[in-house]
């Protein structure tokens, strides 16, 4: 029983939040609001899938917010320059993947600390966004582009569908492929993994490239949703994304965690933001509340593993 509770504690926490909230606001447990929450978490949630793989492989990626902004801006800039929508999106995705790949190469081949490399990339990519946009938002695209972020299939927003597909792929990759098993192995014990014949460099490069690619996907969706590319898009997103992964039970020392947990972590952040807005809590307290939730979650996790 205790083991059961331990395994599903994140889910139980989420469920409890939902139950309490449904008593506090009669607007909360409505279908439109539920879809609203899923849509709001989908952009960071997609990045969190990539971040889960990075953290499982004992890494960290601080550049996701800046890569999101640059990919979105390049996509927008291409479209504003009369490149076709499909090609613009592909170029945007290529930019994100390329920067992620660069992160991975610096970390594995040049043997630089992941924290420093991705911190540098955070700054480089943000700088490039400002250079590329001249500090001004880019807007005015083909109306068709808006369906990526703003469209629905039936009642379900398209970003939610993309998020769901990426969650499923992420789950399959981690649980049903050799690559997935190697990610856990590298994160669990890099030395042992190398001795077992796993090309740890290649695994690391791939997870950072995936993280960059998924940040770019989020960048395209966000640009479409806002119908403009903002030079300040995604500032501090890396923190929320890491929070989602950690709240979902993935260990920051690597090797332990699941995609399902990350979905729950994403929903906890989403429900928290949405609830505080529905209840009209002043924004400054919202920041405090979010910080406390993360702190308490990590504190309890650390107490559990101390002895």
């Amino acid at each position, binding site marked *: 029983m205790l083991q059961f*509770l*331990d395994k599903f*504690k*994140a889910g*139980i*926490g*989420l469920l*409890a*939040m939902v139950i*309490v*909230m449904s008593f*506090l*606001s009669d*607007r909360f447990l*409505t279908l*439109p*609001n539920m879809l*609203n929450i899923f849509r*709001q978490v989908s*952009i960071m949630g997609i990045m969190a899938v990539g971040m889960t793989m990075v953290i499982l492989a004992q890494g960290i990626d601080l550049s996701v917010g800046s890569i999101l902004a640059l990919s979105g801006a390049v996509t927008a800039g291409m479209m504003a320059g009369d490149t076709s929508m499909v090609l613009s999106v592909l170029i945007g995705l290529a930019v994100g993947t390329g920067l992620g790949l660069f992160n991975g190469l610096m970390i594995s081949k040049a043997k630089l600390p992941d924290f420093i490399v991705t911190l540098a990339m955070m700054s480089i990519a943000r700088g490039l966004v400002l250079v590329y946009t001249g500090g001004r*938002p880019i*807007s*005015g695209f083909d109306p068709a582009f*808006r369906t990526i972020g*703003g469209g629905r299939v039936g009642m379900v927003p398209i970003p939610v569908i993309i998020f769901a597909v990426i969650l499923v792929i992420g789950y399959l990759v981690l649980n049903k492929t050799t690559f997935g098993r190697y990610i856990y192995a590298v994160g669990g014990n890099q030395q042992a993994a190398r001795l077992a014949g796993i090309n740890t460099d290649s695994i690391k490069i791939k997870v950072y490239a995936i993280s960059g690619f998924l940040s770019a996907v989020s960048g395209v969706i*966000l640009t479409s*949703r*806002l*119908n*403009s590319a*903002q030079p*300040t*898009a*995604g*500032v501090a997103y890396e923190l929320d994304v890491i929070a989602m992964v950690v709240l979902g039970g993935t260990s920051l020392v690597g090797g332990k965690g699941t995609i399902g947990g990350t979905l729950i972590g994403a929903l*906890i952040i989403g429900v*928290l*933001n*949405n*609830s*505080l*807005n*529905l*209840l*009209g*809590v*002043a*924004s*400054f*307290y919202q920041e*405090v*509340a979010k910080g*406390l*939730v993360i702190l*308490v*979650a990590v*504190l*309890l*996790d650390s107490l*559990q593993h101390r002895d």
Partner: protein
Amino acid sequence: MKKLVALVVVMSFMLVAGFAGAAEAYDVGLAISTLDNPFFVDLADGAEEAAEELGVNLTVVDAGDDAATQMSSVEDLVIQGMDLIAINPVDGDAIVPAIEEADMMNIPVITVDRGAETDVAVHIASDNVEGGRMAAEYMAEMLNNEGRVIELEGIPGTSAARERGEGFNEVMDEIEGIEIIARQPADFNRAQGMSVMEDLLEAHENIDAVFAHNDEMALGAIEAIDAAGLTDEIMVVGFDAIGDALTAIEEGTLAATIAQQPHEMGRLTIEMAVQLLDGEEVDEFVPVPLELITQ
């Protein structure tokens, strides 16, 4: 277990908020671009005071200058069933989809200070044309309707530069003794204001006054005038009442500036919201009076 404890923390915040107010009144949401800037804090304060007076349930959400956050919080306000949503957009383009969602639910939208690239019920902002007139009238009076004047313009094509210039020239054109001897853009930038003014001091003699479309350019011009040793000869009037400009007014290097009144802007937002919800006729544009600040 850890989530349960986490939950207690969150719930205590939620409970405090949940019991805060439950009167039968209009529910109005105000989405502010950022509360990290004193201008917008004043705006929110003005709105909160008016809401209290008029018995409006006001919910203020802060976007922290992030267009995506603002969009999400406006969506939450829509879900919450607000009677009206007032938005001070982070970006006029990026807010359009959120306004469309409010439209779909028949929730009227008011924009404050910055506009949106779509139709809204009311737009409340400072009347820059009137501000330009106020600057001109003050300057003409100080000059006894006689003198040679330079106008430092803002970034060409921006509404602030266009409107401030329009009001200023409208008044000055009527005064025979005053001649605008030069008009030059300095892009709202202090360094530009200084170098443009340096050039103009070379090109012209007997300059009596300078009107700059914002304080940054005015302060740059003051540097140039000071370097030329003409501080006592040339009067400078700016716009915006930024902190440095108020200091310069105290020191006597800047003659006057025009202040926007964010507190008033917030108050008007709630007043207009109530009028609109009461079914009264409201103008599409509500100008907010400006204030002339001198020593």
